[in-house]
């Protein structure tokens, strides 16, 4: 009798326990297919893990520093930098086993920090075998004009055009030699978001307990040079409007080209 009561009690307990959350008991899978893979291209996460993205800003091969360091672009402009800020959002990884893009990231703002390096870590990246990463430089049109402006999207943090209610995606400011006139290029507007996709198949890195890192290079020389030479003496050197034609004609293709993979490694 007592046993019947207790089994009844336990079953009621299970049924009644917080039905809302759709609790599925996660028993450890005795056979993890991902663990058995030994030959692969890209990055392998047998279990959910964390990935750190390290963005490093170079001018050709030199790390970017602010103020007095001069750089010469392929368009033969001698320039120095005082600000390099950008937004990274919508980070996605391509799972080659499931043949789908997995959303792993959110909206990040690099502003007012180190001229050379900007990092953030994404925790709880789902298990998978990934061979491609992509992200936006900027804020997609949906979040650009609607949704809560919280976290790194707080307009109080700057990189925001109040007059269009939209975010600045990429901002570069500095001085142009020899006259030391300033230049300031602000790229914003829903149609000017750069979506960059990077192939990871030259690497084969399995997630370690400390996660893994993907190093991404921004080569600022390319921003002014490749494929379109951008002459700060004749092209607009002050851009504060998303409809300036040179953005689409020259700078967006250059921005795609300025991004490249440095390396992938286990931490």
């Amino acid at each position, binding site marked *: 009798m*007592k046993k019947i*009561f207790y089994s*009844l*009690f336990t079953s*009621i*307990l299970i049924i*009644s*326990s*917080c039905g*809302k959350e759709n609790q599925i008991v996660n028993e450890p899978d005795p056979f993890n297919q991902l663990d058995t893979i030994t030959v692969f291209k890209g990055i392998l996460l047998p279990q959910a893990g964390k990935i750190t993205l390290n963005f490093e800003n170079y001018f050709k091969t030199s790390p970017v520093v602010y103020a007095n360091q001069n750089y010469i672009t392929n368009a033969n402009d001698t320039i120095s930098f005082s600000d390099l800020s950008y937004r990274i959002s919508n980070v996605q990884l391509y799972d080659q086993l499931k043949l789908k893009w997995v959303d792993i990231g959110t909206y990040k703002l690099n502003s007012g920090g180190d001229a050379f390096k900007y990092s953030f870590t994404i925790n709880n990246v789902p298990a998978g075998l990934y061979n491609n990463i992509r992200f936006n430089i900027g804020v997609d049109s949906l979040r650009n*004009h*609607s949704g*809560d*402006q*919280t976290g790194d999207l*707080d*307009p*109080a*943090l700057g990189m925001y055009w*109040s*007059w*269009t*209610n939209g975010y600045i995606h990429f901002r570069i400011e500095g001085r142009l030699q020899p006259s030391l006139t300033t230049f300031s290029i602000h790229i914003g507007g829903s149609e000017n978001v750069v979506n960059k996709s990077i192939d990871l198949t030259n690497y084969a890195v399995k997630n370690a307990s400390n996660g893994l890192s993907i190093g991404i290079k921004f080569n600022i020389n390319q921003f002014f040079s490749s494929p379109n030479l951008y002459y700060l003496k004749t092209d607009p050197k002050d851009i504060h409007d*998303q*409809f300036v034609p040179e953005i689409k004609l020259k700078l967006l293709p250059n921005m795609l080209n300025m991004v490249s993979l440095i390396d992938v490694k286990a931490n």
Partner: protein
Amino acid sequence: MKNINFKISLPSFFILLLFSSCVKDTKIESNISNNEWDKTPYIIQYPTFLSDSSNQVISPIDNPLTNAGVELGRKLFYEPMLSANNTQSCATCHIQAYAFSDTAQFSTGIYGDKGTRNAPPIYNLAYQESKPADTIHRFFWDGTSINLERQSIVPIQSKIEMAAELKLVVNKLQSHPVYPSLFKKAFGTDSIHTYLIQKALAQFERSVISFNSKFDEFLSTRNFNVFTDAEKRGYVLFYSENKPSELIKGGDCFHCHGQEKSFFGTDFQFHNNGLQKQPTDSGLFRITNNYNDIGKFKTPSLRNLAFTAPYMHNGSKKTLKEVIDFYDSGATLSPWVDPNISKHFPLGLQLTEEQKQDLISFILTMSDSSFVKKTAYSKPN
């Protein structure tokens, strides 16, 4: 007997315990304490003709109107700390006595700069969010903002208006003796962020409605005799097409300012009304870069015009007579002028002076004199 009782009550006790813990879990939302969070809904009193829920203010799911939120928004609306030098609040240029508009053609910012557009009035703004469902262009003359949350911080940051840095505004409010507790009451947290300022200001703006005019009395009763004879003639002109070929005089006003079943005095859309042949202000085009949008501005509501002079986006018309004379003249012609205006070019509507006065008489029945004195919207003590 006693034994059985015990056996039944023990499991029931556990189940109860479990159940109550589940309920408690769902009520705790992140780190926000419920202690002083007052979620009492703010109730808007609608006239009978707006009793249908489709004609009532719709708030975003994540920013419902609450008494505490509206009250905080109202206090912020009248708060000079929202400007860089603490000299101007929203209410400096949006003055209740003028239906929250400004009598100046262009308002003056904290450093003496003039704007380029006439400060629009504030009432029934929530309908601009719900009536045109599929647009991102709703607020400001040129449709800069999709909603009132986004709208609310633009004048605060504008260099020629309140010229403030948001982070400094946040700091000022955070170190104020009263504001943190008001945010706690409204949003459950005394940690002030831009988005909470946006939410509070938007709540207050959504709460501001005006439906207590003679025109509203007519809409409620459908008794045409609430109008004087001149107003009745004006009503007919307002809702009539001008058909010169059939010798029918009409104002053609209703195309943009509300069909007969519309209560808002606007179609919530953007039009080029032919005010300038070559627009000096590109209007919606500035936001969309679409050639067809050159010189388009949001249709203003015709409610409360008794209080909102001067008129037009650039405040170029001092009186309603000047406005009617302008439309009567046939306006100007350019590729962008709305067809309902350009079809009258160059002959114009050819209304008589009496007809123009009749139109003005009717339009003024849409003015709500109780609104401009309503204490719920006035500066809090």
